[in-house]
């Protein structure tokens, strides 16, 4: 068993499934993301992540397109 590894969502390769720890954005944005399902503890399935451009992430049953800047601000394990 290895240690828990924290990293930004943008560094997770496509096909993996991670758990959201924290979002480091402003309060307004965090609340909006939360209502879209990005709540701490939520499982995120990364469907697509190429080195640039937006990511496609499956969260709470929906596929969401997420800007790279946003994905940088999400800490996952």
């Amino acid at each position, binding site marked *: 068993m290895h240690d828990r590894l924290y990293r930004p969502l943008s560094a997770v390769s496509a096909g993996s499934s991670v758990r959201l720890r924290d979002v480091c954005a402003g309060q*307004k944005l965090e609340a909006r993301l939360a*209502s*879209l*399902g990005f709540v701490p503890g939520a499982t995120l399935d990364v469907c697509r992540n190429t080195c640039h451009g*937006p990511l496609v992430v499956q969260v709470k049953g929906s596929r969401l397109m997420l*800007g790279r800047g946003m994905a940088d601000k999400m800490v996952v394990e």
Partner: protein
Amino acid sequence: MNKSQPQPRELLILLAGNPNSGKTSLYNWMAGARQHVGNYPGVTVEKKSAHFQHEGQRIELVDLPGVYSLLAASPEEVIARDEILAGDASVVIQVIDATNLERNLHLTAQLLEMGVPLVYALNMSDEAEANGLTFDLDLLADLLGGPVVPTNGITGAGVQDLLNVALERAADPTPAHGRVPYGYDIENAVRAVAQGFEGDDAVSARRRAIALLDGIPDPHAPPHAVSSAKRAMERLERRGGRPLDVQLAEARYGFALGVATEASRTPAHYVRRDRTMRLDSIFLHRIWGLPIFIGLMWIVFNLVFTLGDPPMRWIESSLFWLRTNIMTVWPDTVAPLFRSLLVDGVISGVGGVISFLPNILLLFLAIAFLEDSGYMARVAFLMDRVMHKMGLHGKSFIPMLIGLGCTVPAIMATRTLENKRDRLTTILVTPFVSCGARLTIYALLIPAFFAPRWRGWVLWGIYLTGILTAVGVARLLRGTLFRGDSAPFVMELPPFRWPTWRSVGIHMWDRAWMYLQKAGTIILAISILLWALGSFPKRTEFTRDYAAEIAATADPEIAEELANLEQAEALEYTAIGRIGKFLEPVIRPLGFDWRVGTALVGAFAAKEVFVAQLGIVFSLGAADESSDSLRETLQREYTPLQGLAMMLFCLLSAPCMATIVVTRRETNSWGWALGMLFGMTFIAWACTFLVYQAGLFILTGSI
């Protein structure tokens, strides 16, 4: 509001739900063609409502904007929340996408706090069951505190049931029971804040307390409730380590997950929407995604032309038939002014615009198809990289795509952009994307000047030019007026669905009706005005005595030539002729004469008027009355290069009045609206000048 007399009262039913939950297709099943689209006062959110009868009961059904939550964070959320809380609704129906229970129940968690009677439409439950999901409807109804009706937005199954259940539920005004447990600490805080709302009942006090803790301003809240909420927020945020509204959302998702796992069973091997994933691997392909999109657009424009052509010719030939018959039956000695008004003003003007209805319908059909199938959101993804080059992100591309239909709703669609700079840039460049009204201009001019096999390409090229100009101008704006990073963005990629003919049909019918209404009102009025301007003042003295010269000549060709010269001289003398002449020095370098100039002035009212005015000006100017069609006349009068210049200028120049007005409303500033007007006209002039002069140089070798 008098409860002792419930009989003839119209019941208000609100339809709430997430975006892409199938809410609108259920609404279409219930409302049919009886719907009315308007705007909520003060904001530009579309209000869709319908009045109809069910089982003898009059009903007003309102389709609320699709939202993920009721936190009042966007205009849509504010509307949805306010409409639900206004207290006029007898029942609120939430449309829940059965294939996506957990996410949809997050909204339910908030609806439960609103203190209204709730009914749930478990939409697409049959599709979900076919995929192996099972639901315990009784348990679900129990946990959600309201009846659950399985429905299908594609086939319309369950819709009658849903209305029956909604009416039953409306007879009993007690609110839905069921509450979200927020956990010990938060519940304590909610109770403490709720105590501050002394005049309210328990349900409303709890709702207002939670709203305060969610950070939603409540101007009527008692000061001690506000201060106790502020204290609780600070305490709970310290303890929870994250903003309180995030903690509340977590609790609601917790509730949603709980209900979903209790009341539904997912088979172990269940992979959600693998069809959508398969299609995404094609449409979002790293290399092929963009070419597929461009190819699809190319097919759309070709279809608009090839399929639209035969019905357009039928309409044109019946108008021609009508015109010639009126002229034969109505001799020009009887009330010649009214005869001219009818034939030259109304039929040439309005008729010319109506003949493009088939093209417009096909374009709207294609847009409705792209929207309803879920492909539109993929386009935002595909275009993200391109849009980044112009300092925007993929989401800005959707208003531009809607702009293919009409610029006005496109500018309204920019509301989904959170960042003000992104939004202003998108508003200012969207009018460069060629709209449906401008299509009428190309539909008139392209067949007049280009061989059939080039027509699709020319049209495609014009649209591409519009989009490229939008890109260029956006870059310029982002580099100068609107510097700064674009906002981070999130957007749902809805599952791919085959659009139903019904919803596409309703969409198309709406548009057709709007187009015909516009032709029957604004364009009719402007046609009559332009006809009058083109008929008065009448010229009585000519430079030559045409009548005598025509009588003297034996050659019929010279006689016709003379008659045309006489008409042209008469037309130049009229008000429109003077306006055109006044403009001519400015537009002459673009290859336009004064007649095109008058059409351009008319086009500011509505782009279709360009076509109407050319019809009027050439039919007034024609000496013999049963002469060529407008296209043949244009072909004779202008070169293909001039035709191209006209299209280019119409594409890029000042948007129509409606666009200016909606820009003023959306930006809340005349400055931006007028800046758009003059900026675009300048760009159009400069580009057309370059293209026309360069073309002239290449073709003739001299300027």
